[in-house]
């Protein structure tokens, strides 16, 4: 993974930016980090859903903690995707925030998962907390799919992949050159790998803390 991300850092600099327009074309290199972070957010919330289902089928509180840890990392990746996207938007569309459907949807997603943690912190009973948050997590992931994959594709917007306000399909298909793909795809895989690595460490630390508290 060290080598793959090192390649992403070098490759992002080595190849020309994917869409060389505007005043500062170099800023487009942020796509090599922004897009993989957004994909990793979906993977993280999906992992949260997986552990929520495991909890509901086994009633083992360990899986509830794992679902919450995965969602927490998902929020971190979501914030990073939003911040990197905001910098990108300033250079591309002239403003840090434009209420484009995809920007609105990622904001809604952050609210959905902020509510997940608000729900968790509001409940004292561990079983009730685990039950309700597992069910909420299922709705949260349905919202993730809607906000990431459906809403930005049906509403006209600035991001690639959105239908044009005129009703045309121009720009609705995202294509990359081989050079861009050779950095973007390893970057997405490495970001997902990094998520699983950090998540596993968080699980192990949580297990060790529980062992210590149980004496």
């Amino acid at each position, binding site marked *: 993974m*060290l080598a793959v991300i*090192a390649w992403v850092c070098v490759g992002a*600099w*080595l190849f020309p930016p994917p869409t060389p327009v505007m005043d500062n074309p170099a800023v487009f*290199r942020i796509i090599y980090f922004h897009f993989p972070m957004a994909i990793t957010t979906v993977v993280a919330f999906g992992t949260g859903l997986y552990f929520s289902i495991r909890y509901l089928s086994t009633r083992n509180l360990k899986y509830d903690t794992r679902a919450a840890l995965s969602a927490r990392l998902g929020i971190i990746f979501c914030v990073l995707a939003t911040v990197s996207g905001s910098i990108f938007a300033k250079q591309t569309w002239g403003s840090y925030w434009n209420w484009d459907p995809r920007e609105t949807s990622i904001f809604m997603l952050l609210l959905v998962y902020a509510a997940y943690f608000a729900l968790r912190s509001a409940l004292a009973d561990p079983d009730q907390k685990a039950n309700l948050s597992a069910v909420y997590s299922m709705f949260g992931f349905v919202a993730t799919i809607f906000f990431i994959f459906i809403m930005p594709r049906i509403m006209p917007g600035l991001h690639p992949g959105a239908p044009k306000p005129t009703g045309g399909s121009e720009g609705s298909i995202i294509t990359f050159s081989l050079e861009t793909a050779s950095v973007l795809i390893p970057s997405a895989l490495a970001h997902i790998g990094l998520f699983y690595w950090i998540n596993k*460490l968080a699980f*192990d630390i949580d297990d060790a803390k529980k062992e210590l508290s149980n004496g």
Partner: protein
Amino acid sequence: MGNYIPMIVALLGWVALWSYLISLDSKVKRIKKHE
């Protein structure tokens, strides 16, 4: 090709994160071994 500085900052940042995660990983493995 562009400015070297963002690439160097990205590389240094990644190496720092990787070293931190590796050290955390080995600490966790040591704790697990003792259990």
